[in-house]
């Protein structure tokens, strides 16, 4: 596998860029693997990459029913941050943030990680108290954060209406300068390329149709292209987790909802940070291409249709236009929905299951993109060692029976 570098770019320019290697192979599946990962999205590919690069397990296959990174990885709004309230989730997301900070070098692939800062706005006294509490908790956990008042917010985002004339005036915000955005497709492609280089088989256009379980232990998967044996199976299928759990004969505390987002026509640079508001329900950033990327809350009903309802879009845009009157005539280019796997406490499930050798990484709900590297690393460790990584221990399915939930509705909220 050739490394990407400026010299390579010059070399290939001389042959009109016609001789670049394929980024990854398209292998025929082997009979058996040490680890089979179901789901070739960001989290699944990151898991495969870290299994091979950090934990020495290279006999790995990733099985994807569509194409790599074609699900929620390509449908999110690319926000990366780690300012979560509780110790358990803060540790997990901050682990991820630290991996983000060196990811482009690690993968030799530019994931365009841009630490442009994230503002979480507060519009009521209650909001502001929550923000103060969360920022204090963050700082105790070694995560950067500041509480800003309306004037300071205005200095960071001059185009935002921070006056007291709005229906829900901006009173202040929490500010995480290390947070930002990354290029979502590049993350999937970078991990895929890295994993492939280390010998992982990426098997696309192959759907898992059943699990081969013998005496309570997983021995392989049935796929649309025949049976594949596996010593361990990691399931990283987001919205379809409940379907795979059904194949294994148990239930998950997960409901799948449509989550919508939309992008505008490209504009000249106007917004150089990420603004999100739980209270008026919307978040917005601008891509390097110039599009405004806008998202909000889930549609409240269960759905697998990768589409949602129009009133949710309308509600989102009302909030955005209220905050940014200057955007009121921006035209929207595209709108889409992804299927998010939400849990009752807005925290993921990284867990062993009643089936020996079968592990689930799911329930990331509306905020999984930011966790891609951390989730992959922690889940790879879990698969390699056959037990939960210390950071993953609090996120077992058992918490819904013991009652030790990690309620992140405040930090997860609408903010993804």
């Amino acid at each position, binding site marked *: 596998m050739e490394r990407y570098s400026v010299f390579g770019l010059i070399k290939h320019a001389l042959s009109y860029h016609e001789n670049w290697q394929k980024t990854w192979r398209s292998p025929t599946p082997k009979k058996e693997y040490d680890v089979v990962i179901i789901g070739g999205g960001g989290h699944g590919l990151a898991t495969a990459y870290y299994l091979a690069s950090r934990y020495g397990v290279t006999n790995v296959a990733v099985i994807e029913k569509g194409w790599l990174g074609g699900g929620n990885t390509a449908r999110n709004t690319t926000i990366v941050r780690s300012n979560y309230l509780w110790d358990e989730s803060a540790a997990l997301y901050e682990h991820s943030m630290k991996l983000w900070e060196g990811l482009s070098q690690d993968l030799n692939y530019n994931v365009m990680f841009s630490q442009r800062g994230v503002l979480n706005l507060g519009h009521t006294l209650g909001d502001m108290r929550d923000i103060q509490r969360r920022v204090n908790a963050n700082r105790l956990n070694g995560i950067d954060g500041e509480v800003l008042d309306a004037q300071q917010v205005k200095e960071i985002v001059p185009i935002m209406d921070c006056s007291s004339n709005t229906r829900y005036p901006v009173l202040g915000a929490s500010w995480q300068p290390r947070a930002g955005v990354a290029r979502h497709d590049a993350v999937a492609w970078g991990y895929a390329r890295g994993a492939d280089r280390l010998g992982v088989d990426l098997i696309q256009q192959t759907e898992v149709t059943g699990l081969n379980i013998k005496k309570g232990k997983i021995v392989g998967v049935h796929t649309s292209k025949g049976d594949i044996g596996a010593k361990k199976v990691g399931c990283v299928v987001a919205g379809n987790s409940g379907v795979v759990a059904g194949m294994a004969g148990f239930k998950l505390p997960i409901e799948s909802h449509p989550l919508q987002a939309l992008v505008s026509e490209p504009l000249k640079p106007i917004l150089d940070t990420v603004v999100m508001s739980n209270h008026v329900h919307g978040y917005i950033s601008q891509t390097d291409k110039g599009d405004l990327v806008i998202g909000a809350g889930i549609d409240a009903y269960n759905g*697998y249709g990768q589409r949602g309802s129009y009133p949710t879009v309308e509600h989102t845009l009302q909030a955005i236009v209220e905050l940014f009157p200057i955007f009121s005539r921006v035209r929207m280019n595209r709108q889409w929905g992804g299927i998010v796997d939400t849990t009752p406490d807005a925290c993921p499930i990284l867990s062993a299951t009643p089936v020996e050798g079968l592990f689930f990484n799911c329930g990331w709900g509306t905020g999984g993109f930011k966790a891609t590297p951390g989730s992959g690393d922690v889940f790879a460790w879990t698969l390699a060692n056959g037990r939960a990584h210390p950071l993953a221990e609090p996120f077992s399915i058992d918490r819904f029976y013991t009652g030790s939930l990690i309620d992140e509705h405040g930090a997860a909220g609408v903010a993804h």
Partner: protein
Amino acid sequence: MFYIHCPYCNERRSEEEFHAKGQAHLMRPANPEEASDREWGDYLFFRDNPRGLHQEMWVHAAGCRKFFNILRNTVSYEILETYPMGEQSSVLAEMTAGRERGEPRRAAGAVA
């Protein structure tokens, strides 16, 4: 965008008047004092999440404010039936009866 028939108002109204309230026909443990942690966990947190037909509770929030049940396909988003609280889905009953008689599945109700 849904148009939903409220079985109480007996009118077909737009989705904005309604809120989805999750899975229908959940039974609270009959003897709460004797329910185990497992039973409580299942009752509180574990829900059906089918890719296909789903029975859900909705509320006509901006109308009569009453709760009712919907039988809906979570893939095609087709609403097959709405029926009042305390009743069971007649469409689902008819489909089950039809299957027992050996009839092929109705296309609209087929799980995608």
